[in-house]
């Protein structure tokens, strides 16, 4: 997720074929606690099942700081492959020991310095426990504070801005088999969403066209998020993990303009206008 679109090179610029720029990217930290391969696979599978879209081709940093005794090269390679199997791309290691350095460079993994506070137990160190955000039933109000990777040290660019919620706007039909996820913000679709398609957002979802697929708002647990659609024909609607399927939806307001909201543990579907 680039921080900003790169500007067009101006004519006065040098004839270099590239330019180096600093950037801040949100990354997920996978902090290993146990290296038992079977348990790791089982736990990963369970976590992936909860939020499949969140993990699709997601770059992650693997933290080995909690692991004792130190990891062997073969184990590292196994964990990297296991992550890949679940759609996670390990791009860097944190807190690796000296004898893993060769293995890491052979696997094209970058090495990041260990965190300043060793073996932090609480999440108040600027590394929130992302698990809490993923389990749908928890009401987490604080914003995730992403781990940063700095490509360039430049004091002026390192000013941390609070991430503004980004709205994703889709103008072409979302077809069967397609999945669109608006991470960290709202999703607006100005076209039909076909049966068999899936649209997800951390915030609200608006569909200006027939909404026939699966529509999931507040997938990271934001219970105040809502769904607005012009014609409700969905296979499933969900807010923060609370859902209704097609069979129930057909009972009320079918093919009408509605908004879907959550109070306590009940999904409300109300006509618009």
């Amino acid at each position, binding site marked *: 997720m680039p921080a900003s679109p790169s500007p067009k090179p101006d004519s006065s610029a040098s004839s270099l074929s590239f330019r180096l720029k600093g950037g801040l990217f949100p990354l997920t930290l996978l902090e290993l606690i146990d290296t038992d391969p079977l348990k790791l696979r089982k736990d990963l599978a369970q976590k992936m099942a909860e939020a499949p879209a969140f993990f699709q081709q997601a770059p992650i940093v693997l933290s080995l700081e909690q692991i004792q005794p130190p990891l062997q090269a073969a184990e590292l390679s196994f964990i990297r492959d296991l992550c890949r199997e679940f759609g996670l791309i390990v791009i860097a290691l944190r807190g690796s020991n000296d004898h893993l350095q060769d293995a890491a460079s052979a696997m094209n993994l970058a090495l990041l310095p260990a965190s300043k506070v060793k073996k932090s137990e609480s999440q108040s160190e600027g590394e929130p426990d992302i698990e809490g955000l993923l389990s749908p039933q928890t009401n987490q109000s604080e914003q995730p504070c992403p781990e940063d990777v700095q490509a360039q040290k430049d004091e002026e660019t390192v000013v941390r801005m609070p991430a503004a919620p980004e709205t994703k706007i889709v103008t*072409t*039909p*979302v*077809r*069967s*088999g*397609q999945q669109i996820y608006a991470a960290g913000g709202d999703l607006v679709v100005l*076209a*039909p969403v*076909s*049966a*068999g*398609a899936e649209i997800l957002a951390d915030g609200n979802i608006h569909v200006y066209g*027939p909404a*026939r697929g699966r529509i999931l708002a507040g997938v990271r647990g934001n219970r105040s998020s809502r769904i607005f659609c012009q014609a409700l024909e969905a296979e499933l609607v969900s807010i923060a993990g609370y859902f209704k399927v097609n069979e129930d939806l057909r009972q009320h307001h079918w093919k009408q303009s509605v908004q879907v909201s959550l109070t306590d543990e009940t999904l409300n579907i109300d006509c618009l206008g």
Partner: protein
Amino acid sequence: MAKIIVVTSGKGGVGKTTTSAAISSGLALRGHKTVVIDFDIGLRNLDLIMNCERRVVYDFVNVIKGESTLRQALIKDKRCDKLHILPASQTRDKDALDPEGVEKVLNELADDGFEYIICDSPAGIEHGAFMALYFADTAIVVSNPEVSSVRDSDRILGILQSKSRRAERGESVEEYLLLTRYNPERVEKGEMLSVEDVQEILATRLLGVIPESESVLKASNQGLPVIYDSTSNAGLAYSDAVDRLLGEDVEHRFLSVGNKKLLQRLFRRSA
């Protein structure tokens, strides 16, 4: 500039090869130098429908592997000299196609002065179908008026706009819907989806509606593309579709029962 058109559907048996044969013949009959490529490696059919199966020496895979030249593998159509056929291999499987090889052949065809390159896709959404659609500028999505076929067409439209070369470059593939095996009488009885139903689900420009017709089966068995049969509604509907593909504004016909009966009466009178 050659225009690459893929004829695809997702679902099998909806009329992709019949459509490829008809559209490519139609374009060639209108004077455009056209080639039709069979991408269905291992299930070669196009040559049967085009009635050139006895003249197949080399095939698409031979050309990709460098075992023959393109010129050796291209078969000139006997009815229209503007049309060439590049048959599929019957003995290999679809993995024999690779993007570099396919691109090389397409570029060579474009350099040879072909205006239209029609790619007849295999069914499914696997490697073979992907190879057929990857380089397409335009897609003709063939669908039957039936729920599962429409759903598969929707899926293939999604793949076209996300996985094709044009999509990767941030451009869009021009997409058309061709509805085949349409039976207005069954639509009226509520046994079949109507054009409007399908249009509402797919929201794609309609290239044509081909009525269900015995002449299609007859044409396949005789090895004569149905577009040559100017006495059949299916042939006429394909002809209209080719005109629309070339940018003409032609009104859709054979959509309702009454219309069909009127034409049958006209034909009976003229016969």
